[in-house]
Structure formats: C-alpha cells, structure tokens
C-alpha cells in the first residue's frame, strides 16, 4: 500500500485535508461569494441584524443590493465579507510562519547536530530564546517595528524556531550515527551532501508533522494578537480583529464574536488533526497509541 493511500485511510488526515481544502477554496474565491469590500464602511448599515436583505453603499457612492448573512458591525462593515476574507490572512500567516520556522529551525538544527563546535553556542542561544514568552516577544516586536504582516510572522515564528531546532538536532544526533551515514563518509561524500541527501530526507517526516503544529499555533496566536490590538491594523479583516471589534458590544450582538470563532476553531482543529494523523502514519515511533 502506498504512503498516499495509507495517509488517506487515516480518518484524522482525511478530516484535516477536507476542512483545510474547503477553507483554501473559500479564501481563493472570496470575491465571488457575494461579498463586498471587507474594509468598506456604510454608515447606513451600522449593526444591521444578521440575515437582512438590504443595500450596501460602496466607496464610490454607488449602492448595490446585498444580504448581510452575518450582520454588520458597529462601523457598518459586512461581517460575512470580513470573515471570508479573514480566511486568507489566517491561512497565509499559518503557512508562512510554518515555512519560516521549519526552514530556519532545520538549518540551525542540522548545524547544531552535526558540528560539535557550533552546538554548545547555538543551543545556549536557543535556550535563551525559549525563555522569552511568545506573546511578550510579539508585543515588543510589533511595538518596535509596527503592525505589518511580516512583523506578525516574525513575532510568531521566532519563539517556534528553538523548538524546531531542538527537534532537528536530536534527529540529526541519532541519524549521524547511522551506518549509512558512516558509509557515506567512507565513500568520501562531502559533508553538505551528507546533510542534504542522507540526513535531511530521513528527518523530513517528523519535520512536516512539527510544521502543522507550528501552523496551528500561528493561526491561533495571530488571532490572539489581533484581539489584543497588537496584530495587523484594525482595518485588515482578520478573525482576531473582528472578534476584538465585536467584543465591545458582545452583550447586544454576540454573533459578531461567534462567527469568526466558528471559523477559527475548525481551522485550528483541522490543522492539528492533520498533524496528528501525519504523525501516526509517517512517524509511528512518536504516535501516542
């Protein structure tokens, strides 16, 4: 049975792939799903109730017929449009953070695991990095550099890098003692080639699994940062921003917080389940069962 087949037979993987696939499609076709500009405000529609059929005044003054499926917020922005467009931001941040953290962590981990001289220095630095609480670091970075997509990605990725580095380092420490690595050394294979062709491919499965967990935590952390007003600017439609805005009038309009949450929870769940399933199939040694 091929690895793909075994992956698809795993129900956690199947659920994760289907849900994430739907979200990606949703994010891609957002403009054609009956949405309006998510940043546009229409003073006539402040706090419109959910399900109202009405019209939405666009920035150029013209007006179009629009259904407020999820209602409108206190600035008259359409929550349905904001939530759908928010999928783009969340997925983008989840994926870029995972790629950045895994990429940098893998390189540093391989250096630390293979070269004894760098190991001590690098790992003590990583220990130091791990001692900084992730949220505090994010607050400091965003305060110093301003709230942009890349600062948020860096703020979330940096605290993840030491964890990835540690994982890769421990994998490399075992792999470098494997006979096939020693044989490659005896065959005069240059060290960078040993690292890339012999060690990295054998460390890939746990790395992919770790990547999904980083992505899930990035999606969540981005929402937390936005909710605290430390993430992306308030006009950018992110699930955290929508919830932060809705928090003020939570008692009158609870749906403003509810709808972004209804997207956030399944997204994080799907990514985590995907990771669990991948680990069970690709990396049975670390499976919980």
């Amino acid at each position, binding site marked *: 049975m091929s690895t793909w087949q075994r992956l698809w037979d795993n129900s956690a993987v199947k659920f994760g792939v289907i849900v994430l696939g739907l979200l990606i499609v949703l994010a891609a076709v957002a403009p054609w799903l009956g949405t309006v500009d998510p940043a546009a405000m229409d003073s006539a529609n402040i706090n419109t109730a959910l399900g109202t059929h009405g019209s939405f005044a666009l920035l150029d003054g013209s007006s179009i017929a629009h259904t407020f499926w999820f209602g409108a917020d206190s600035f008259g922005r359409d929550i349905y449009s904001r939530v759908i467009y928010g999928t783009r931001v969340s997925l983008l941040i989840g994926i870029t953070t995972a790629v950045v953290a895994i990429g940098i962590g893998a390189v540093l981990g391989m250096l630390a695991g293979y070269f004894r001289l760098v190991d001590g220095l690098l790992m003590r630095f990583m220990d130091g990095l791990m001692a900084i609480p992730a949220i505090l670091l994010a607050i400091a970075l965003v305060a110093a550099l301003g709230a942009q997509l890349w600062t948020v990605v860096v703020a979330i990725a940096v605290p993840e890098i030491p964890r990835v580095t540690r994982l890769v380092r421990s994998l490399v420490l075992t792999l470098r003692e*494997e*006979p096939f690595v*020693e*044989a490659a050394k005896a*065959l005069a*294979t240059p060290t960078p080639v040993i690292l890339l062709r012999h060690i990295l*491919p054998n460390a890939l499965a746990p790395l992919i699994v770790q990547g999904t967990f980083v992505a899930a935590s990035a999606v969540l952390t981005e929402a937390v940062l936005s909710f605290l007003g430390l993430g992306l600017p308030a006009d950018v439609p992110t699930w955290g921003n929508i919830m932060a805005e809705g928090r003020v009038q939570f008692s009158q309009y609870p749906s403003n917080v509810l709808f972004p949450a209804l997207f956030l929870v399944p997204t994080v769940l799907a990514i985590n389940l995907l990771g669990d399933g991948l680990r069970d199939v690709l990396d049975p040694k670390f499976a919980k069962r």
Partner: protein
Amino acid sequence: MSVLAIQNLSVALPAGADRAQAIENVSLSIEAGETLCVVGESGSGKSVMATAVMGLLAKGLRAIGGRVQLHGEELLTASPARLRALRGKAMGMVFQEPMTALNPVMRCGDQIAELLKTHTDWKPAQIGREVLQILERVKLPEPSRMAASYPHQLSGGQRQRIVIAMAMVLKPALLICDEPTTALDVTTQKEILALIAELQREQGCAVLFITHDMGVVAEIANTVLVMHQGHAVEQGARDAVLLRPQAQYTRMLLAAVPGMRPPAARPQAQGGALASASAVGKNYVLRDWLGRGRVTWALQDAALAVHAGETVGIVGESGSGKSTLARCLMRLIDPSSGEIHWGSHEVARLRESRLRPLRSHIQVVFQDPNRSLNPRRKVGASLIEGAVNFGASHQEAAQAAAVLMHKVRMPQEALLRYPSQFSGGQRQRLAIARALACKPKVLVADEAVSALDVSVQAQILDLLREVQAEFGLGLIFITHDLRVAAQLCDRVIVMHQGRIVEQGTTAELYASPKQAYTKALFAAAPADLTLPDHAA
C-alpha cells in the same frame, strides 16, 4: 500428563502478509523437567508460538485452529483474566532483550515484588525475603544491592538474571525462553544457559526454548522442533535430529552452521601491508561543568596490518574495542594516538579534505542490513555515490554498478528499488556492492554477517571469499562469533577491554590459545556440532 501440549495449532497472519499463516498445524508436548528447543530462522514463526502460548499474540494475529493446553487446561479459549492469573504463576517468560523487558524507572527488587503482590497474599516482609532469596538463586552477587538497583546500573548478563528471577519466582510449571541469550556475549551466554538448566533441575519445570542457534540446541535440548515458514519440518530427540536429520531443511540448516575447526591454512600473504595501524589508541574525555576531564580509553596500543588477499579477523566481546580499532583504521573516528598507513600514505592526522581523495582505498560493510543503506534513496543512487565522488561520470558509475549487481548476484532491477524491498541478506549483498563500487584495496566487514540467519550467513561468507579472491582484497573481518572467524580468517586478533590480548594464525590460535582470556572465550563458545559427515 505433559505440562504443555499443543495440538495442530494454526495462527493466521493479517491479510497482505507474505503468507497466510504464521504457524500452520504445529503440534508439540513437553513433560516436566524436559527442555524442548524450537529452532528456526527469522520469520519461521517460532516466536509467534511462544506468544500464542502466553496469550500475548500481537495485534492482527489470530489463532484459528488447534489447542494449547497447560496441564490439560485450554489456553486459547481462556478468558483474559484467567490468562493473566496463569502468566507468572503457571508460566514464566524470558525475553531476548532484558533492557526492554524490565521497567527502566523501577528498582529491580520492586519489579519482582510487584509480581508477588499480584499473585500471592503474602505479607510485605515475606515478599521482601522471597525477593532476596530468588536473587540469590539466580546467582547475583550482593542480592540486596541488586534489588535496590535500577536496570541500567546492571550489566546485560545481570539484567537477564533479573528477568529469569521474575520468570521463576512463582515457580511456574512452564518456562518459555525466547532467544534469551542472543543479545549477550558468549561467556555470559554460557552462564545464563547453565543457570536456566540448574533452575529447571531444582524446580522440575518444563522449558520451551526458542533459538536460532544450533550450538545452543546441542547444549541444552532434550527434544528439538525445527520450524520453517510456519511448518514443523522435523521433530524428535536432540541426538536424532542433530546427528540423523531427516528433513532436507534441517540438513541444510546444520550444514550451514560454521564449525570451530578452521579450514586448511592458505599460503601466507606476500608484499607490503595494504593498510596498517601501529600503537593506535582512542580515548574519550568526559568533562564536568568545571571543565575537569575524566579520560576513558576505548582502545590502547593496538597494532594491525592487512596484506593483499589476506583475511584478518578481530574477535572479542561487546566493548572490547574491536569496532573502535576498525573505525580508527578507516578514519571514521580520529585516533588519539598512533600511526595509520593506507598503502604508503600516513593518514592518522590527515585533514578530512586531504583524506577524502584517499578514502577509496578502504571501504566498509556494516552489521545491520536495515540501517546500512539510506532508506530514502534508491539502491542505484547509493551504489553510484562513491564512484561519482571519486571522479567517475554518472554514466560510467551506473555501468559499473550494473556489473557489480551481477557480481553480488542481484538482479539489475534492484538498482531502481528502495532498500526496504529487500531481505537482510540481499541488503548485505547491496552493501558489499556499494563498497566495491569505489574499487577499494581493503574491505572492512564489521559484524557483517552477525544479524543474518545461518543459511544466509554462509552465502554472504562465500560472497566475501569470492570477491576477495577476484579483487585481491585485504579483508578485515570483525566478529564476536569464533566459529565464523574460524571459517574465514587467516589470522585472528583477540581483543579484550580495549587491548589486543593475543593473536596468531587461525590454526595455531584455535589449537592452543595461550592467554587466560582467550581460553575462557573458546571454552564458552557453544558446543561444536558433531555433524553427520564428521561423525562418520
């Protein structure tokens, strides 16, 4: 009534396995005080039988027919609770790897006491006395210290004694031993076999002993059951099976067992050494947090030379420094002292960049066929790696690899597959081909046949002899198995605790070992089989 009676037992394998049944229609019976050896190669189903008796069949395996009776009580249909009560009390089990059979975070004494607490209603004081008593009976020095020790603080042999103590403390009627000495050194193996035999005499229990080693069978069995591919191919009294084997498979198995008698000596090698080491030492320095070092010598003052067409054996138990010596000679690790010559080059302290072009001179085949080829690369990629590193074009290297596949008797298509699609013996052939691909002068075989079944072992030894003759290789053969060394080596070096204790031509050394350690090592080797053709 026999203690254990198995009638027509069949166990089904999950769908998609290489055969339908792990064991098919196997019957046996063991009387009290008797030892039955189940012998067979890997995959023969011998361990499945042990787990079926214990009611511990792995997930996916299912007994589909037959009966397993302990003192007349049916075990296959017994409830899990009843089986749990029987395990330990009526049947004990000793496993191959004592480190994994023991709980690493629990003191050894507590692990034995736990068993007694579960199966008896004794008072704590009585349990404590019993624990010390059983530790004494398995001949562990200072029982009270052993009881307070954690498994990692004990040696392999001591750990196996603890496992035996756990299996025997409730005086079971049946003791099941699944390869209990395979992970141990020969001298330790001898002691453990003697201990099992002695406990059996005292308690009169029946022993079901599973092994792949005919030498062990010759030493301890009353009756023998030979298994192959899930079938019982031959069954009978030990002497009948070993001396007058009926089944073709048994004969093949016995013929493949190497003897202790070396074949006739070959003429001595001429010319300069292809590779040599003199006064080589390797130490490891452990530093505490203040930077104070503690030096441990893994290898001291070792010398070795190998000539064209010659096979030099390095034998010793685990931790004797034999692999360290070979790795220093290959410069896979850096020696702390001494000189190493590859032909005319002195390489002991050469930088890696200067060393790399010379590395084709000496190549290696490792022990574990599962791990000696990169599982994520196709065999072809692994085979051309060396030749390409030494300047051949991809095309030349691929052609050379195809020729080598023929030489090691593997099909060309193997180059396009992944290592996991081959058996252990086949992978070892591929590893040999990989080493030969960069045209070495010296080949190091580090326990290259130790993980293989005897029949496969014989084939790989033949292959090594063949390629050695064809390419005039100097062969350094590292093994813990004196019988294998006798078959292949011209000269043998005996190592113990990081030093060479004795060396000489194989014939001389085996005929009259001089040092006390060498004598002990030879005495501990499993009994030489008196094969049918020798007996005549």
